[in-house]
């Protein structure tokens, strides 16, 4: 993906839950995708992690079981060299091309938009559902100018735009932008007219939709 300058970011509550390791997995993956394109949110996450550091330092101590200290010392002997295991380089993974997906999505969708097994979901809309343990993770491709019927959400829905753009009640969302929608938020996104809009969507609950047949959205919920 090319460099982007997002205008819609992670909310403060989300930053805290993310840093705490308490965001449902589907939402966390979308939040990571946005953060990989947004230095501002990476900085905010560091702030939220400092709170975790402060909390852990203020914890009461849990007494060690017998022999814990000796066991630790023995493990130091076992790796006395103190050699840092080499961290993997991400340069290959992040090699930029027009169809390269953000690195945090590679485990779920592979490296490239090219050749993805899109499935028909509704008129003008194709999708791919990734297998994750908790919640729903979808990549959507919606045709230029297409609208998605007004819908609300059970639980939370995070969307990060990868290509193209859409407009809804909350503004224009372009590549890199993150939208957080909750139970009470209803919206009717309309895609920009120049190119298909590709988004990654995380849900911690079900989508409910007015004006579209349950059958049309059914493939959303089939693993």
């Amino acid at each position: 993906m090319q460099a982007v300058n997002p205008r819609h970011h992670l909310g403060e509550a989300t930053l805290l839950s993310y840093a705490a390791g308490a965001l449902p997995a589907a939402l966390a993956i979308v939040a990571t995708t946005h953060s990989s394109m947004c230095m501002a949110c990476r900085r905010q996450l560091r702030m939220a992690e400092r709170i975790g550091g402060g909390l852990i330092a203020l914890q009461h101590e849990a007494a060690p079981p017998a022999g814990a200290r000796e066991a630790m010392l023995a493990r130091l002997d076992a790796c006395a060299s103190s050699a840092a295991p080499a961290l993997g380089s991400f340069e290959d993974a992040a090699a930029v091309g027009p169809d390269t997906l953000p690195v945090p999505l590679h485990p779920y969708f592979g490296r490239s938009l090219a050749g993805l097994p899109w499935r028909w979901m509704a008129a003008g809309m194709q999708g791919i559902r990734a297998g994750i343990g908790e919640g729903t993770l979808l990549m959507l491709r919606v045709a230029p100018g297409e609208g998605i019927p007004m819908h609300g959400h059970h639980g939370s829905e995070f969307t990060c735009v990868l290509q193209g753009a859409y407009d809804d009640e909350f503004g224009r969302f372009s590549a890199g932008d993150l939208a957080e929608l909750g139970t009470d938020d209803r919206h009717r996104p309309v895609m920009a007219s120049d190119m298909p809009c590709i988004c990654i969507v995380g849900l911690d609950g079900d989508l409910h939709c007015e004006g579209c047949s349950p059958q049309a959205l059914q493939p959303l919920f089939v693993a």
Partner: protein
Amino acid sequence: MITGKSTEVAEALQNPPSAAMHDWTAQLEAVACRHDRDSFMRIYDHFAPRVRRYLLGLGVGGALAEELTQEALLRVWQRAQQYDPGRSNPETWIFRIARNLHLDRVRREPAWRMAQEYLDDLDGAVDGQWPPGTESYAEEAIIHQAIQQLPGIQARVIRMSYFEAKSQQAIASELGVSLGTVKSHLRHAFLKLQAELTCKR
């Protein structure tokens, strides 16, 4: 009535701790440069009981909690050279190690750690947000005090998030309030702690 913990923090603020006792950055540097076992064991003696409590609080069973505590501290030993004081203070670095281990090994979200390493990688070395020379123990004291001063409900949702890894929805259900209310408490807590750290530094 002052709780034991705020007394401890208040004392730490009044009597700047001696470098030997509280400058964990220096201890980490000694581990990184000289593989100094005494420095490492000082870090171990201070942080292992807290990491253990953190994991037990997350519901990890005793034996596994001990195994992961050791593994977390072993990573401190092995990766001290990668610790970057310009990026995080020692307690935050150790928190991240423990949190990532929990997500990786207990919650079984194997992609999480790779993603965190990737995000770290993006900003290269020191990015200047925390200028070198900021004493980590001074900064730690500020955040400790700010956490202690959070209003009760904000402290509660923060603790449920960090220490019980509860989602906002789960917190809302447990407290019998709306999701929006939980988000609002978390938001206010974040803004308050952020303001303390950026103003007093």
